[in-house]
């Protein structure tokens, strides 16, 4: 379903610094309804990998296929259609700071063109899932880091995407909520959604017993079914 082929990403160095190789010759495939964790130290290239898949950045070399289509050959005007099939949880949340929690979530549905009833129904359901029902009408500035993270997750879920990209979705959560979120992702995957999770949370990875791809300095050093967090 998703195939990374010989992906290399080199960021040009600034002011005489040498260029930074973020990813080097990365190839792997993610099957439909699979749960894949990408692990590695910070700077190993996890976020870059997800950014390339979302066409936020272009690879220096290589191709990424989604349902057989090279995502980097999609015209800018058609990109929204690709992105609507993907639900992304960003490391820095990327929430709209001038809107409430509810509006941040409802927004994605509006963009797709859902009716007001659908939006009201689904937004309430998703807020319930992430446990923010009583925070729905608070503005982002009034929410804690963990609450914002849960808003970001709710936003990624609401339009029932085919794939969920989660970049450190538990980074700002206490262990209880972190576990809840991971259970939630597992449930979503069981219901038929592909999940790609980037994290450096060792306990979570080890308790999952799912496929793990380990990155180090931009290379894939291990790719195991029922993998563990080993660096």
């Amino acid at each position: 379903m998703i195939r990374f082929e010989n992906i290399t990403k080199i960021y040009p160095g600034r002011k005489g610094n040498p260029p930074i190789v973020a990813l080097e010759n990365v190839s792997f495939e993610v099957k439909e309804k699979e749960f894949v964790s990408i692990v590695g130290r910070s700077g190993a290239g996890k976020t870059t990998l997800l950014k390339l898949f979302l066409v936020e950045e272009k690879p220096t070399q290589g191709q990424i296929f989604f349902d057989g289509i090279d995502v980097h050959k999609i015209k800018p005007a058609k990109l929204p259609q690709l992105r609507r099939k993907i639900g992304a949880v960003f490391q820095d949340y990327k929430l709209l700071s001038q809107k409430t929690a509810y509006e941040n979530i409802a927004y994605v549905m509006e963009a797709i063109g859902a009716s007001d009833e659908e939006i009201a129904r689904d937004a309430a359901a998703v807020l319930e899932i992430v446990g923010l029902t009583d925070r729905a009408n608070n503005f982002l500035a009034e929410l804690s880091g963990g609450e914002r993270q849960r808003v970001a997750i709710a936003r990624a879920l609401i339009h029932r995407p085919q794939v969920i990209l989660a970049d450190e979705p538990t980074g700002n959560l206490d262990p209880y909520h972190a576990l809840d979120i991971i259970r939630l992702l597992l449930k979503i995957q069981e219901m038929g959604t592909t999940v790609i999770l980037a994290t450096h949370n060792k306990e979570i990875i080890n308790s999952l017993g799912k496929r793990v791809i380990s990155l180090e300095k931009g290379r894939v050093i291990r790719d195991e079914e029922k993998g563990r967090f080993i660096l």
Partner: protein
Amino acid sequence: MATIFIILVAIALATSLFLLKDISQVLISSLREKADISVYFKEETREEEILDVKEEISKLPEIMEVKYISKNQALESFTERHREDPVLIESLEEVGENPFLAALNIKAWEASQYGVISRFLEHPSFENLIEKVDYYQRKPVIEKIFSLTSMANKAGIFLAAILVVVAVLVTFNTIRLAIYNSREEIKIQRLVGAGNWFIRGPFLVQGLISGFFAALICLLIFSITSWFISPKIEFFFPGFNLFSLFAKNLWILFLIQLISGILLGIISSALAIRKYLKV
């Protein structure tokens, strides 16, 4: 808010350009009307002969207007003009008879045509009727008036056009800054799969609303100012009423303001946002 104000400035300039054009046209035509040439006929020429000449001249395409001034009319207008000057009136009485010659007063469309007309009048067939053509005497004045007015016209339009360009650039930049503040938001919207028109929509509507209100405020300001300064302008240029000119063109002015305001708002927004939609 700042956007509305800046658009207001831009369309106020465009409006004054429009009004200024009308004002200058009124002034220029009043100046041009003062340029003419006179043909003086010999003492013994009969009135019928003069009217024949008038008929003939009127057929020339260059002529705007020909006016016959008889000996008596010339005398009357002279005494009327110099009523306050006893020396002149006395000397006129001294002469005893009417010293003025009958004349045709000729106005042409263009300054360059006066030469053609005076050459036509120098034709031998008129020789024993016409005393003199008062053209060469006035030639420099006529030409000066025409070149001055056409230069003033061009300079005015040029200056106003530059001001309008500056105003448009400032408007565009203001809107660009406003959108620059929203660049993160625009990027996020793109990344979660919002279409370009969906993102652009609110900004364009904002531009449209700013343009609309700017036009409304501009119209209000112009109505009030022209109402107040109109009597003062009329004092200097009799017969020229700024407010009635404004009222007569009210709808076309409002239309110009509305269209330029809205277009300015929308086009600036669309251009400014383009850059951030490339994620």
